[in-house]
């Protein structure tokens, strides 16, 4: 039996629905947990980060304006596509995290289930965190959550797939668009997730995936005036503080690194509410039978 030489994949970034190489032309070596070469991933530059923000901003109007039902459908479609690529992800997660096939399979299954969980949230979160307020006056007012805008997501460093999806899905389920910085050491599952997103119905630009040095990419994102929020899950304490200071310049919403013992635990709604604004709309109520204005 002659050994067939396998066809390797060139991993690329995912920006605005396209798969560009880094504009810098740089790559870095990604290895498995034993140091064996897996691929050369793009080493994103500041310019790549800025391009991703432009793409995310462009996609925001359409995505945030879509009905919650539609967003749920689109996200569920992603889960369907993920399931279809299960074998590929099991392989990548096993390599990335040094897990056995069965452990990696557990991670991938949990990830698909996590995605489905968030798909079901799109049209429920507004009822849970919004509603009518019983004001003391002839007014009707309603508080509704709205997405905050473009969110920079620093994916967790250790959990390359479940952790990634656990921080990305809540951001887009609520109507934000995302620029994701993949795990520095294990970016391949994130870059493959981008292929899934591209073949689902997620509009280009809603999710943008960058690989490279977290600190290098995160710095321009944290200080970017057109980024509305940042999730620091993948930053260590020193970097997190630096980024938080930069984020103060345009008062980004900041989700600080939270200790997560186990990404498999069912999440609460905090990761969704962290990137939601509350808008309260007031309207006078008519007083039936009274003279004067009727509005």
């Amino acid at each position, binding site marked *: 039996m002659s050994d067939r030489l396998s066809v390797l994949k060139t991993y690329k970034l995912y920006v605005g629905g396209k798969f560009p190489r880094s504009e810098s032309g740089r790559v870095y070596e990604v290895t498995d947990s034993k140091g064996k070469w897996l691929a050369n991933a793009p080493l994103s530059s500041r310019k790549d980060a800025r391009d991703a923000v432009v793409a995310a901003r462009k996609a925001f109007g359409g995505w945030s304006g879509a009905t919650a039902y539609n967003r749920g459908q689109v996200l569920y479609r992603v889960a369907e596509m993920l399931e279809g690529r299960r074998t590929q992800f099991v392989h990548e997660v096993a390599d990335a995290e040094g897990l056995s096939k069965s452990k990696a399979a557990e991670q991938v299954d949990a990830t698909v289930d996590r995605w489905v969980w968030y798909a079901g949230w799109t049209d429920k979160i507004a009822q849970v965190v919004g509603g009518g307020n019983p*004001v*003391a006056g002839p007014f009707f007012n309603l508080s509704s959550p709205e997405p905050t805008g473009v969110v920079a997501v620093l994916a967790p460093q250790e959990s390359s797939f479940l952790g990634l999806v656990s921080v990305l899905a809540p951001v887009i389920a609520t109507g934000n668009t995302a620029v994701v910085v993949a795990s520095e050491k294990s970016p391949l599952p994130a870059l493959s997730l981008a292929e899934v997103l591209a073949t689902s119905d997620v509009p280009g630009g809603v999710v943008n995936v960058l690989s490279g040095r977290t600190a290098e990419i995160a710095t321009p994102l944290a200080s970017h005036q057109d980024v509305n929020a940042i999730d620091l899950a993948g930053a260590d304490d020193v970097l997190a503080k630096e980024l938080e*200071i930069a984020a103060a310049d345009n008062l980004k919403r900041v989700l600080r690194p939270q200790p997560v013992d186990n990404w498999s635990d069912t999440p609460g709604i905090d990761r969704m509410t962290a990137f939601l604004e509350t808008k*309260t709309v007031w309207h006078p109520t008519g007083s039936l039978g009274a003279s004067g204005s009727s509005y």
Partner: protein
Amino acid sequence: MASAFEYAPAPESRSIVDIAPSYGLFIDGEFTEAADGKVFKTVSPATEEVLSEVAQAGEADVDRAVAAARKAFEKWSALPGSERAKYLFRIARIIQERSRELAVLETLDNGKPIKETRDADLPLVAAHFFYYAGWADKLEHAGFGANPRPLGVAGQVIPWNFPLLMLAWKIAPALATGNTVVLKPAETTPLTALFFADVCRQAGLPKGVVNILPGYGDTGAALVAHPDVNKVAFTGSTAVGKEIARTVAGSRKKLTLELGGKGANIVFDDAPIDQAVEGIVNGIFFNQGQVCCAGSRLLVQESIQDELLDSLKRRLSTLRLGDPLDKNTDIGAINSEEQLARITRLVEQGEAEGAERWSPACEIPSAGYWFAPTLFTNVTQAHTVARDEIFGPVLSVLTFRTPDEAVAKANNTPYGLSAGIWTEKGSRILAVANKLRAGVVWSNTFNKFDPTSPFGGYKESGFGREGGRHGLEAYLDV
């Protein structure tokens, strides 16, 4: 415009309030001098009369107050919610009983009309304590999990535009959730916060649960930076808010910020003009325009611009500026000499940049800090008066042709606190409200507040919400 009948003066009596010649800091249930003995004077902005001398807290005093709050936290947070609720209900009731006294005091120290302190500020202050009192024993039902915990010591820094109301917005939810507080009122309006200390005494509130530290910006900075403060809440300027965000970076302190705004008040061609004019006046001249959510940019549909401006100018000519204690006064004094200088500078810049300035004939009192209600027309989006928060009775008028243009112009600001929509068409209200990036949208009304309703900004107007169920989150470990 000369009127056929003049109003007779109708002054509210100031004898109801007894202002002492000096006040201390309120720490651990006692009034005390500042460690370094520093004091400052607080004046009535309407007359420049010195009302009292107030101790000025320094770093050592911040240490003492935070330590007192920390000590009190143990017992206060362990109290059953139903007991904390009763303290808050007591406070609410005492505020109602003393509301005339507090309204007069607020008017004296702040310069705002008695009409507003009496009819808007004080009822809302009491309402906030009532509202959050009821939450204290129901926190497990608030949607933040089964056992929401308080954060600890809250450091709170509030502005001078609504001194008592901002105190209520900060203290009521903090106490209801089991936190203890150290609050710094603004240097120009410390008196009602110090009287609130007496309300706490009457309510029998345990020592150290509420501490009041009058002082300037450096006092606030020391409080915000104090390592034993777990939660920082600030209402004030965007510049200071950013500085605070940098200060707490990398710490575990929870932060909420209520900052500036440049609210758009959008009037469509089918709006009821008379009601819209009232809403515009209320939106920018309430509290002399010293309101973060003021509707300081009027966006009027081009086809009704002339008609609306005529009505608006006619209405402005009937506003009465003068003694804030007079019950007929609509526009009181600007809070401080410094604020008056800021307004004056920005208005002069507006003129220099080519905007057209208009004010009704208006007699300005000889003493005190005053600014006549002012309109700017011929304003473009690039003008400073259309971009910078003026925080005074100054309205910039811009025009638009289509709803899309109105939305684009309304959102063309780094702020995102408030907006107004005036139209008879319900579907247009909903469509436009949906597209506005602002935390509160008033349709066919303006400047309405209620303790049950979350309030707070998008973008550089800050983060977090005050009021309602949402307001609890800022003080809970969630």
